C-alpha cells in the first residue's frame, strides 16, 4: 500500500515537473492585431502560448492548422498548450477580427 502511495506521489511529481518544463512563448493582441505577427517556436516539443489581450473588446485566439481555439477577454491573459508540432508555418488568427488579426507560428 505504501509502495503504491509512493508510486502515485512520484508519478504526480513527475507530471508536475513536466508541466513546468514546457517552454513559454508570449503573444499580445493590440488594436486587433497580433504582436509579434510571426512567432518562432521549437519543433517536436509541447509549448505554452501566453496570449495577452490589451484591447477593450474580446477576441478569440484560433487556428485551424494546429487546432486550437480559446476566447481572450478584454485586458486579460490566457494560456494555450500547443504541439509538439512538425517543422513548418502554421496560420493562426483572431476569429472576431479576421481582417486584421492574423499571425503565423513558425515551427523550426
Amino acid at each position, binding site marked *: 500500500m505504501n509502495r503504491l502511495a509512493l508510486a502515485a506521489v512520484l508519478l504526480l511529481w513527475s507530471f508536475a515537473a513536466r508541466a513546468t518544463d514546457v517552454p513559454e512563448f508570449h503573444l499580445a493582441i493590440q488594436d486587433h492585431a497580433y504582436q509579434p505577427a510571426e512567432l518562432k517556436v521549437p519543433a517536436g516539443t509541447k509549448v505554452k502560448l501566453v496570449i495577452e489581450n490589451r484591447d477593450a473588446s*474580446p477576441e478569440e485566439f484560433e487556428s485551424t492548422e494546429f487546432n486550437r481555439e480559446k476566447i481572450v*477577454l478584454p485586458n486579460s491573459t490566457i494560456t494555450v498548450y500547443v504541439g509538439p508540432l512538425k517543422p513548418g508555418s502554421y496560420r493562426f488568427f483572431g476569429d472576431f477580427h479576421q481582417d486584421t488579426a492574423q499571425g503565423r507560428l513558425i515551427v523550426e
Partner: protein
Amino acid sequence: MPGVALLVFREVLEAALIVSIVCAATRGVRLRGLYVLGGIGLGLAGALLVALGAGFIAGLASGSGQELLNAGVLLAAVAMIGWHVVWMSRHARELAQHMSAVGQAVKAGSSSLTLLLAVIALAVLREGSEVVLFLYSMAMGGISAGGLIGGIALGVGGGVALGFALYFGLLRIPLKHFFGATNVMLVLLAAGLASTAARFLLQANRLPALGEQLWNTSWLLSNGSLAGKTLGILIGYDASPAGIQLVFYAVTLLLLIGGMRLAARPAAARREAPAAAIPQS
C-alpha cells in the same frame, strides 16, 4: 456586416445540424416541437449566462475553466445521446411488433426525449455563448446597428436554412431504414463530440496527446472550410487529429454500438445470457 454574417452563420450552422439530426431522430413523437423550442430557449438563456460569466469561468481551474466547461458540455451531450440510442434499441423490438403507424411506434420514444432536449440546449449554449461575445466585441468596435442586425439576420437565416435542408433530406429516407439511419447519425455525432472534448482537454494540458497531428488532410479538406466544419459536426472529421482524439472517438463508437447490440437482444436471451446456444425462433 459580411464578417458578422459569416461568423454567426458558422456558429448557428453547428448548432442547427445537431438540432436537425435530433429532430429527425424524434420524428413522430408527440409534442416534439415544444421540446425542441424549449431546448433552444434554454440553450439561448444558458449562452447569455456563460457569456456574462466568461471572466469568472476563465479564471477557474487555474486558467483552464473555458476548456473544462467546453469538454464537460460536450461529454454530457455524448452521454445523453448514448443513453437515447441504447434506449431506442432496447425498445425497437416491441416497437416493431406493434408498429401499425409510425406515430404510435415512436410515441414510446418520448421518455428519452428530455435527454435530446438537453442535447439541443447544450449545443445552442456552446455555440451561442461565442456568438454573444463576438457581437459584444463588434458593438464595442462601433459597428452600425444596421450592420449588426443585418449580419445577425443573414447568419441566423443561412444556418437555420441549411439545418432545415438536412432535416428534409433525412425525411426522404424510406421509413424502413429511417430510425436505423438516424441512429447511425446520432452515434457518429456523439463520437465526433467526444473527439472535440478530447481536443479541449489536450489544449488545457490535462491529457497526453498520444501523437499530435497523426496525419494532415488539410490539402484535401481543411477544418476551416464550410465542408470541413460540416463534416466535423456530422461525423467528427478533423484534418489533423491528435491520437487522444482518435481514442475518444473509437471508445465512444464501441461503447454505443456495444450498448445498442446488447440492448437489442430479446428479453429471453438477455435473461439467460451467456448461454447463447438456445435456438431462437
